[in-house]
């Protein structure tokens, strides 16, 4: 990302995360002349530098550790693993480098103009650009795609520091603290908390609401929670963090429980994972007619068009769910629309995966939503206890749930929990997109012995005889 600022561009893409870079690539493939702007050294955005990829690298480390422990119980003993933090960090950064270099190479191959810097709208056809080297310039565009993503939300009045971290800080893996408080029981908090817990940190999780992973069915969460209860030092539900004070030897935290009772504790480090906020404030949107909603997300239509002609928005900036694969999908729609094609963002299902151990994954309609809407559905829930593959992996914690329309057997949603659930969910997404029925799922031959057979077996349960 080091080209000079061109005077004009057919299509400018602001932000080079998964949304931005894939929109830029796709548009270039469709024949548009594209400029891509991001403050990062190479394309990648949150996902590669401080999101999906580094977190999954650390979770892999966690998996290796917990597997050596599990191995012992089935008769494979090895020395207790010791961790070389510096080497782990270097390996994680190496993964990021390989992937971002690949993206940089693709940008060059597609002859994108890439600018290292930030952009702001001056009006509906001009961007004010400040490059990383301090250069200022203007760029006139015909069309623009906004993909500036999101950033972590912090508790009011709190700043990150050496002991108070957000997800970005936690992923840097400065050290492995003895104790850590994770504020927030969402997927980011649970993933990072699990990684640190496996590496030896005593992790406490505090969550304001009554349960972990909002939006996910309770029966799936309870399977995960059974294991987290063992791995984490404690999980405090219905509890608020009232105060955080960074001290010399730790962070003093004041909690308040449901009944209003306060208590004080000290942790070596605190990780704030209470949510993410769209990066829409610094974009100069006031100089355009682009609308944002009360949460700060840019309002778009089915083609990702904003309320300003010729300007699109995709990825985290364009709304929930804030997930990289949603950004990819929207990127392709916006790029095609910018190239004059009739495209629309109309997926039947966007899968969600929590990469904890066990993993939780779901897509389509959840059982909770079905109940709330009073839909006539049939569900099949199958414990993995009887699945051969799960047992040969030394595991039995898992569940596969299918939700079908009670009237016509059409698959409406799938929920999974168990090791490897994140990979298994892809079949469910395909099934939903293809409008499959329970009959389809129970007829398709699934390989034996695999975890995917739980989908087949669960589908069988929908039928009598």
């Amino acid at each position, binding site marked *: 990302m080091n080209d000079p600022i061109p005077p004009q561009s057919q299509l400018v893409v602001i932000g080079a995360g998964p949304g931005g870079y894939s929109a830029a690539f796709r548009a270039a493939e469709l024949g548009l002349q594209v400029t891509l702007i991001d403050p990062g050294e190479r394309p990648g955005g949150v996902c590669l530098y401080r999101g999906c990829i580094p977190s999954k690298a650390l979770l892999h480390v966690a998996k290796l550790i917990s597997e050596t422990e599990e191995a012992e119980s089935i008769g494979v003993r090895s020395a207790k693993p010791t961790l070389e933090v510096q080497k782990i960090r270097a390996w994680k950064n190496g993964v990021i480098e390989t992937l971002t270099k690949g993206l940089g190479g693709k940008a060059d191959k597609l002859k994108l103009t890439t600018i290292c810097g930030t952009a702001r709208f001056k009006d509906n056809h001009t961007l004010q650009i400040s490059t990383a080297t301090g250069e200022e310039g203007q760029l006139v565009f015909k069309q623009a795609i906004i993909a500036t993503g999101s950033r972590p939300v912090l508790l009011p009045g709190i700043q990150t520091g050496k002991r108070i971290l957000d997800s970005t800080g936690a992923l840097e893996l400065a050290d492995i603290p003895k104790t850590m408080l994770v504020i927030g029981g969402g997927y980011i908090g649970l993933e990072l908390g699990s990684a640190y817990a496996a590496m030896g940190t005593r992790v406490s999780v505090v969550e304001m609401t009554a349960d972990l992973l909002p939006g996910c069915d309770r029966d799936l969460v309870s399977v995960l929670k059974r294991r987290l209860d063992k791995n984490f030092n404690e999980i405090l539900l219905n509890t608020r963090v009232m105060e955080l004070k960074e001290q010399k030897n730790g962070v003093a935290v004041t909690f308040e429980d449901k009944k209003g009772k306060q208590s004080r504790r000290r942790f070596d480090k605190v990780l704030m994972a209470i949510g993410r906020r769209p990066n829409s404030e610094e974009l100069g949107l006031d100089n355009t007619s682009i*609308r944002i909603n009360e949460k700060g997300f*840019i309002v*778009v239509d089915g083609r990702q068009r904003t309320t300003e002609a010729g300007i699109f928005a995709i990825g985290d900036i364009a709304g929930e769910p804030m997930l990289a694969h949603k950004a990819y999908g929207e990127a392709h729609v916006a790029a095609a629309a910018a190239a004059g094609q*009739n495209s629309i963002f109309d997926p039947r*299902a966007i899968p969600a995966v929590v990469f904890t151990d066990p993993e939780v994954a779901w897509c389509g*309609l959840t059982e909770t939503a079905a109940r709330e809407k*009073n839909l006539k559905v049939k569900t099949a829930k199958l414990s993995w206890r009887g699945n051969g593959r799960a047992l040969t992996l030394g595991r039995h914690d898992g569940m596969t749930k299918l939700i079908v*329309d009670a009237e016509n057997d*059409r698959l409406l949603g799938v929920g999974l929990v168990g090791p490897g659930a994140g990979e298994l969910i892809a079949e469910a997404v395909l099934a939903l997109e293809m*409008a499959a029925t329970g009959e389809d799922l129970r007829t398709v031959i699934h390989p034996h012995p695999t975890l995917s057979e739980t989908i087949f077996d669960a589908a069988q349960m929908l039928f009598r005889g």
Partner: protein
Amino acid sequence: MKQEIKLPEVSEGVRVGTVTSLLVAVGDQVKNDQTLLELETDKAVVAIPSPLAGTISEIHISEGDVVEIGATLMWLETAGEAAETKAETGMLPETPPAEEPLGSPTETETTVPLPPPPLPPHHPTAAPVDLTGIRRDDRVAPASPTVRRMARELGVDIYQVQGSGPGGRISIEDVRAFVKTTMQRATGGGITPSEFPGLHAQRPLPDFSRFGTSTREPLSRIRELTADSMSYAWSTIPMVTQYDKAVVGPVEEFRQARNNGTGPNGKLTMTAILIKICAAALRVFPNLNSALDLAERELLLHDFINIGVAVDTPDGLLVPVLRNVDRKGIEAIAGELNDLADRTRRRRIKPEELEGGTFTISNLGGIGGTAFTPIVYPPQVAILGVSRSEMQPIWNGTGFEPQLVLPLSLSYDHRVIDGAAGARFLRWICETLEQPLNLVMKN
């Protein structure tokens, strides 16, 4: 009223299960069918629904308990009056689910439709705003991405398409059928002749097995083509058939006398004579030797006269064509006809010998019959049917005379030929059979 709720049979062979989650508490109002608890058995986790609507008054189990089938789970206080209970148990449909879309986590307030933003200035030809992302139903249209894309490209609202697959799944064929019926409604059922699938314009067959056995036999290619072209002719050409008869005693006498002594190839048939007479008649009435071009609003008048002759073969009807018959003598025509007919019956005919006809003769005289209505063979506009000649009493002004009479039928396309023209044409043929000098009166 207080009602006991017991653990029902969950599946065959299962005697006990573990309560994994209890989803209600004392004092909760529950609906009929609402899940009360989840039970893990050695086969599966099953949801145990409430059999009735009411308020939970007692709970006898807790999470982690192992319970046997038939054990008391809880007690329910149902509404007092019987009538009310019924209304509350959910037997009647609830109010329909809210308009709010659902089905995947995509529906957040941010995907709510907006007033369409104006089109970018450099896209003057871009299609009008399409907000198909809006879900009108609480369910999504069951179609694969490929099908949805095709619908979008055709401008079809997928939500209006009725799926024919399992679970209402919409296929590419369903979208096509939707476009077709919509177009037919829009254009008043107009279809282009070139794509008329005569064979397929048929209603489903009844179940004949109710009446007895039938065997299925594949259609020969000839039968298939005949079915197609005949149903096309029948449904697109307004046809008229006229009947006339000619006294053919003298011509027949000449013919038989000539055939005495010639070999089979030189055999003179009534069809050969009729071909020559028709050729001459078509010169006199050129409109019958034409083709209709409705699209161009023109009539194509052919300078050439090629007459097809229907030949009955074991596989079905074929119509070999004799070219430029107006320029050939009857003897040459007879020879050519015999050869063509023979080769046609033996399926030794070349495809091009079946093409290019401008008029057709179908002679069933060899078999019998007094008259029939031949069907015009498009794009021709007329066809002559010939039945069996017969001795008939003919009034000669003073008395009846036995005469050999040949019945003729002429079917023609009334869009091109009027009744008077048809009658004159057929009359001319009859008169010429009776007075062959007609043939050379004009040239």
